[in-house]
C-alpha cells in the first residue's frame, strides 16, 4: 500500500463525508473498480459472473462507505467485502460446479501432440485445476503486475504465506505438466 493509495483513500472518504457523492464515487471507481474486477475474476474464473459479483461488491462498498470506521485501511475493508462476496457466490453455485470439475479433469489428461496445443490456454486450464490455496496466489500474481505485496493485500494474508504458496504452486504446476507429458520447458519458449 503506497502513500498515494493512502492519500486517494483519504480523499474518497473526505469527499463522501462532505456529500460530494459523485466525485467520491468517481474517485472510488478510478481507484478500485479494475482491482475489484480482477479479484473477482481470480476467484470466480467466469467473466460475466465476475462482472456481476464485482458490481454487487462495489454497490455494497459504496453503500457501506459511510459506516466505514477506519480501523483498517480502506483497501483492506474493500477486499474483505469482495472476498466475502466471492465466497458467498461460490458457495451458492457449488452445486452447479460439476461442469467445471469435468473441465478441470481434462487438464489431467495426457496430451498426444504437445506442439499442437494452445500453450497459453492449456496452461491457464492447468492453473485453474489447482486447489484455490495455490491457484489464487498464482492468478493474482500475474493479474497484479507480479507484486507479492498486492497479492497479499488482496487475499488478506501475510506476504510470506503468498511466497510459500506461489513456490508450492509452481512446483505443483510443473508436476502436473510433467504428468501430462508437457514437462519439457523448451515447449514453453
Amino acid at each position, binding site marked *: 500500500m503506497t502513500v498515494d493509495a493512502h492519500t486517494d483513500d483519504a480523499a474518497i472518504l473526505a469527499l463522501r463525508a462532505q456529500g460530494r457523492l459523485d466525485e467520491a464515487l468517481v474517485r472510488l471507481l478510478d481507484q478500485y473498480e479494475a482491482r475489484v474486477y480482477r479479484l473477482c475474476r481470480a476467484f470466480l474464473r467466469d467473466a460475466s459472473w465476475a462482472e456481476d459479483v464485482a458490481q454487487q461488491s462495489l454497490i455494497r462498498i459504496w453503500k457501506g462507505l459511510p459506516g466505514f470506521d477506519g480501523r483498517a485501511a480502506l483497501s483492506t475493508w474493500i477486499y474483505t467485502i469482495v472476498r466475502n462476496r466471492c465466497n458467498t457466490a461460490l458457495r451458492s453455485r457449488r452445486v452447479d460446479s460439476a461442469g467445471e470439475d469435468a473441465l478441470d479433469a481434462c487438464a489431467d489428461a495426457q496430451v498426444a501432440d504437445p506442439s499442437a496445443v494452445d500453450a497459453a490456454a492449456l496452461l491457464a486450464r492447468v492453473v485453474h485445476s489447482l486447489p484455490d490455496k495455490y491457484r489464487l496466489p498464482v492468478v493474482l500474481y*500475474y493479474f497484479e503486475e507480479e507484486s507479492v505485496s498486492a497479492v497479499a493485500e488482496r487475499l488478506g494474508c501475510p506476504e510470506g504465506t503468498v511466497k510459500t504458496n506461489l513456490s508450492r504452486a509452481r512446483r505443483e504446476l510443473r508436476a502436473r505438466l510433467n504428468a501430462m507429458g508437457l514437462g519439457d520447458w523448451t515447449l514453453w519458449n
Partner: protein
Amino acid sequence: MELNAADSADRALHRALREALRPPVLPTDFRAQLRRQLVMQSASMQQQAVLQQEWQCTQARLRAESVQLRWQTLLWLLGGAFAAGAVTMAVMPWVASHYGARWSYGVPVAVATLGLVASWVGDPRVRRLLAQSGFFGA
C-alpha cells in the same frame, strides 16, 4: 548443470504463466452499468424511505387516536356512573314507596349483576370459551 536446467524451466514457466494469465480488462460498459444499478437502488431506497415515513405517520396517528379513545372511554364511564347515581337517587324513593324498602336494594343489585354478566359475556376470551364448550349451540 541441473540447477541451470531448473532455473531455465522456472523462467520458461514464468514466461508462459505471464502469457497465459494476462490481467483481464474491465468490460467497456462496466461503470455505466454500475451507475445505472446505483441509480435504481437509490430510487428504490428513496421509495422505501417514503413508505417508512408514511408508516411512521400512520403509527403516530393510531397511537394518538388510541389515547383519545381511552380518555373518551374513561369520561363515558365517569359520566355513566354519575348518571346512574343520579337516576338511582331519583327513582329509589319512588320504588321504595310503591314496592317496599326491600326493592330499593333489589333493583340496584339486579341491574349491577346484569351489567357485570353482560360485560363478562362480551369479553372475546369468554365468548371463545363458551363457543368451545358448546354453550351457544352448534
